[in-house]
């Protein structure tokens, strides 16, 4: 989108406030917006969560079903995470095949969860080389107020934490559902992505839509429960210094730990 006069004015105002250490909505620079998580919003799915991060809202539904393994990956189940920006989420969203922004969103969210090894795919084998369990975490954005990376990531993580894994056994070479043998989906860690925007020389955590439109560059860093950094994506039209990157890494660990507590609590409530 072309920068409009209004956007330019807004950016000046945001920058001016940042010079004084303030943000448009009163948050501290390292303060994410309020996160609310409603689990099991889609009861017919195997797991689901409806997440509101400020005024950005995303829903993730997890479907678990038998699938063929990928070639050379016969000893592992499948985990795939997708993301879609629904046209009701913002007036500028168009229907049709996803553009590069949405493809990047989906892939970054997917990598964050995947690289953390959250879902233990080695436990998702029905019969080696023949039939495995596929876990599909599909996320849709229903309201947009910036920072989709984190809202979608939290929706996926919360939905996975609360997913039930059905049991299948091979019968006549076909996976057959074993009734009443559901368990929790095996997970190993809780990945948390923290997105930071650079506006001028300031780094802010969890940018809202006005900050998103004003930023020079952004970085999304995902950490796991052990405080390791497991995935990262830089974006935007400017760069970062080495010091800024290191600082963002530290912020992602610190703020990530707070968010992780919130997500962990939904898992405990849910199970």
């Amino acid at each position, binding site marked *: 989108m072309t920068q409009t006069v209004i956007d330019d004015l807004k950016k000046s105002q945001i920058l001016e406030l940042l010079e004084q250490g303030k943000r448009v909505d009163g948050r501290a620079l390292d303060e994410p917006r309020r996160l609310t998580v409603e689990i099991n919003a*889609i009861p017919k799915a195997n797991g689901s969560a409806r997440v509101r991060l400020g005024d950005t809202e995303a*829903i*993730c539904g997890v*479907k678990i079903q038998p699938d063929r393994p990928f070639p050379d990956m016969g000893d592992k189940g499948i985990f795939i995470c997708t993301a879609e920006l629904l046209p009701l*989420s*913002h007036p500028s969203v168009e229907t049709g095949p996803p553009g590069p922004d949405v493809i990047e969103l989906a892939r970054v969210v997917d990598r964050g969860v995947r690289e953390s090894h959250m879902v233990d795919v080695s436990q998702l084998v029905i019969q080696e080389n023949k039939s495995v369990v596929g876990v599909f975490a599909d996320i849709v954005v229903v309201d947009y107020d910036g920072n989709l990376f984190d809202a979608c990531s939290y929706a996926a993580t919360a939905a996975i934490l609360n997913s039930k894994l059905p049991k299948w056994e091979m019968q006549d070479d076909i996976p057959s559902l074993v009734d009443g043998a559901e368990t929790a989906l095996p997970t190993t860690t809780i990945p948390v992505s923290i997105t930071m925007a650079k506006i001028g020389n300031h780094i802010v955590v969890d940018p809202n839509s006005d900050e998103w439109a004003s930023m020079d560059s952004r970085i999304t860093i995902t950490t796991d429960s052990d405080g390791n950094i497991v995935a990262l994506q830089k974006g935007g039209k400017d760069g970062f210094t080495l010091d800024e990157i290191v600082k963002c890494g530290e912020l992602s660990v610190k703020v990530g730990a707070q968010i992780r507590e919130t997500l962990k609590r939904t898992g405990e409530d849910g199970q």
Partner: protein
Amino acid sequence: MGGRESTMVLLDENGIRCDGRKIDEPRRILIKAGGLKNADGSAYIEFGENKILVGVYGPRDVHPKHMSNTDTGILRVRYHMEPFSVGERKNPAPSRREIEISKVIKEALLPAVILENFPRTAVDVFIEVLQADGGTRCAALSAASVALADAGIPMRDMVAACASGKAADTIILDVNNEEDQAGQADMPIGYMPTLEKITLLQLDGVLNPEEFKKCVETGIHGCEIVYDLQKKALNEKYFKNGGDK
């Protein structure tokens, strides 16, 4: 009708259906006007286990321009199911079924909305099926009417919708998923109760002419129940809570 034989008892000796309802009883219905921040109007409906979100934008400019009409505003409707909304994960690409339902719902809303005063513009209705359980098009249409009203689009009447059908040789109201799969007929109806006009009508199944008439009448009865809940939802948003959006 899927044509799958089933051993399920759709109607027991006491006239009670497989989900405990009477033959003329709709499923649990919850309608909420508003809810989305960015959309000009929105609504949420739970109709049995269906969960559907509708957002409306407009009247607004049309891109590309050659799709606009210099005499009147146009209505565009997209009915869309989330991958996780159905039993087996749905492929994200729009299906032919979704395209047809989008068109049928659009033509069910057209008699209600007044777009003549908004030439060159479009009103966009985006329907998102979060969870499906039989009868999504009726639930979607009912929610879309509320979302259009919430967006302040002038309307002649609201369209309320409910399906009727036939199972165990009996005309029933509000066909659920099991009854749709194993039953004998499913007839979704959209109706403007004040104007007494049927704006959506489809039928899959087999009905003799008397059953046909009874089925339409039964569906209209259901629409009237839904209509009251639609008005209540708007009331709650605009009057009970002091009119803030």
